[in-house]
């Protein structure tokens, strides 16, 4: 193939066309399909639900929050998938971290910052355990973390019921609503801006004159931050190169001296940490925890990463793409609501929309790689 191209290039001496070369390079980016999908989804909802409030400030704040929380997971999952592994224990880790915080605060009388720190330490242990099991046993991570899915979810239920006798832990943030940590993870930002916009009639206001949207969820900032960090890791650091190498062909990577085991263990710690960040945000936002938190999030995060251009076989993908994948998922999930479709049909539509997004993504990527 290269020889043929070289021969062609020899026949037609290459003219310097920087604009078109830049275009081809752009077409080869893994996130292109997801961006195309995002545009299609927005146009589709613009047509079917344009005037229903989906694109009002309240509607936008709503679907961004859903996308953001999934996006935090998707960024870490994208890294892990590029590294060639899965983490199915992610959703259960969310539940486990949620009740860890809840129990520490309400049963053991610890402060919220200490409880959050404990949850993160537990996440590092669980992530490392997952990673060590996978690299030591050489079993597929799909199986190892599937076991983790059941064990963690079961522990969540058993521990909570043993200690509290219930499956739900209320009053976690009671009396602490104004504290810095609660604001940092579960608060809102941009309040004054919205108040100003509302007072000038730019966005909708409540009857009392305060804005309908009191601010954006902090999870949106975390989403951007986590995605930026993951992208920096992948693109700018040696660790990022290792991740691509490990996912592409781990024996070859080992032969050229990449510390494959260490990379994989770190990636598993990364997904467990993202699950815990998700849990912290949800618990401090909602003020309560229950044993079912995070159910099915492992699959949603994988879907978001795949829409975002990650290959299931590893070695290819991007964190920015995962961000758009999460945006598509969140927009579809909440957007269906505004079209007035009965919820009995919800999962049918969600599944179809996601299938279409993946197909478009796949088509665009194939066209882009053919254009080489």
């Amino acid at each position, binding site marked *: 193939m290269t020889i043929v191209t070289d021969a062609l290039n020899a026949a037609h001496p290459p003219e310097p066309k920087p604009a078109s070369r830049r275009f081809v390079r752009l077409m080869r980016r893994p996130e292109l399909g997801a961006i195309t999908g995002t545009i299609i989804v927005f146009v589709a909802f613009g047509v079917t639900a344009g005037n229903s409030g989906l694109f009002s400030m309240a509607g936008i704040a709503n679907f961004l929050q859903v996308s953001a929380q999934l996006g935090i997971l998707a960024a870490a999952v994208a890294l892990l998938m590029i590294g060639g592994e899965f983490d199915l224990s992610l959703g259960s880790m969310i539940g486990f971290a949620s009740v860890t915080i809840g129990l520490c605060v309400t049963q053991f009388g610890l402060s919220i910052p200490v409880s959050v720190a404990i949850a993160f330490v537990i996440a590092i242990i669980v992530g490392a355990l997952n990673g060590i099991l996978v690299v030591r046993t050489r079993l597929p991570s799909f199986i190892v973390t599937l076991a983790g899915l059941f064990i963690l979810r079961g522990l969540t239920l058993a521990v909570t019921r043993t200690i509290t006798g219930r499956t739900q832990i209320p009053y976690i943030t009671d009396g602490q609503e104004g504290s810095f940590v609660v604001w940092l993870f579960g608060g809102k930002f941009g309040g004054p801006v919205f108040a100003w916009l509302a007072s000038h009639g730019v966005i909708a206001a*409540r009857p009392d004159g305060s804005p309908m949207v009191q601010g954006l969820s902090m999870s949106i900032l975390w989403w951007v931050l986590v995605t930026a960090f993951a992208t920096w890791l992948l693109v700018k650091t040696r660790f990022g190169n290792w991740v691509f190498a490990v996912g592409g062909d781990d024996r070859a990577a080992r032969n050229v001296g990449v510390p494959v085991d260490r990379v994989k263990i770190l990636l598993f710690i990364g997904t467990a940490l993202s699950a815990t960040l998700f849990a912290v945000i949800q618990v401090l936002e909602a003020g309560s925890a229950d044993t079912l938190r995070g159910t099915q999030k492992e699959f949603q995060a994988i879907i978001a990463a795949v829409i975002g251009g990650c290959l299931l076989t590893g070695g290819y993908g991007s964190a920015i793409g995962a961000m758009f994948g999460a945006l598509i998922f969140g927009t579809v999930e909440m957007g269906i609501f505004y079209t007035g479709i009965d919820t009995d049909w919800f999962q049918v539509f969600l599944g179809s929309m996601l299938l279409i997004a993946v197909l478009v993504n796949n088509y665009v990527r194939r066209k882009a790689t053919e254009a080489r």
Partner: protein
Amino acid sequence: MNALFSMPTIRNVLGAAALSLAFAGASILPASAQVKKEGDVRIVFVTHGQANDVYWSVVKNGMQAAAKQLGVKVEYQAPETFDVVRMARMIEAATASQPDGLVVSIPDMDALKAPIQAAKAAGIPVVVIDSGEEAVEPWGLDLFVGGGSEYDNGVKAGEIMAKAGVKKGICINHEVGNVSLDKRCEGYNDGLKKSGGSSDVVAATMDPTDVTRRVEGYLTAHPDVTGVLTLGPTVAAPLLKMFTDAGTIGNYKIGTFDLSPEILDAVAKGTMMFGIDNQQYMMGYYPVVFLTNKAMYKTFPTSAVRTGPSFIMKDDAAAVRDLSKAGIR
């Protein structure tokens, strides 16, 4: 009036124009010119009930029946699995879509407080159904439509059994630690106590083998027990079978919370004494009626609407069973 005029949407401007016309020429235009049309009324339900849950599908049927009769638009939203965080997002989305009324259940007061209060602050009337009555007053919500308290339902169950001659009863708790179930058993004990009786709690699980063996063991050790109260059809059904197989069914007065076709069959046959029904069909039906009236005429009930408890006894059971199969009871 000024606030009304400053609102930008065309409908409001037209409405205001119609209103001022009505004032200007009251003798020419009938007062109904300013009333909202049925077809423009939109009411959104957001509950914690999963779509395939029998109990909630009855609520949904009630909602649809009312919408059809009145000619208003309704939407029913619920997470596919029990997920209060997703429910919170759904309530926010509902608020953003500016409905004429919002109907919610409140299984977790902490997680749903902010979105429900935001809906209320946005000027949307909020009706609470099924659970969350205690939130209505402190949060300034509009109405509660639902069954009696768990405790009161238990007391009534105790009173009915006491009247039928039960002195000593047992309450089978299949979810030890669930506060609402504890309250049912507590009420049952207090209901029996009014006539000098008493009851014990038998701790069990949902597992049919576990339930039947524990109850069998308990009854052998305590032959004076004649009343049995279960807290759900899932537990009542295997117990009925155990008593029938052992030929001891005639020795006990048996009652249960909640209905199922199996339970209704047993009540109709007389092997079971009663099933307690919260008539959740009305939790779907009435909020639509009330909120439509509020949107159109600004009329609204002033106190909570009790849909339960209704005790289904032998005489009604057969008729109720047909309705149960039709998704109404």
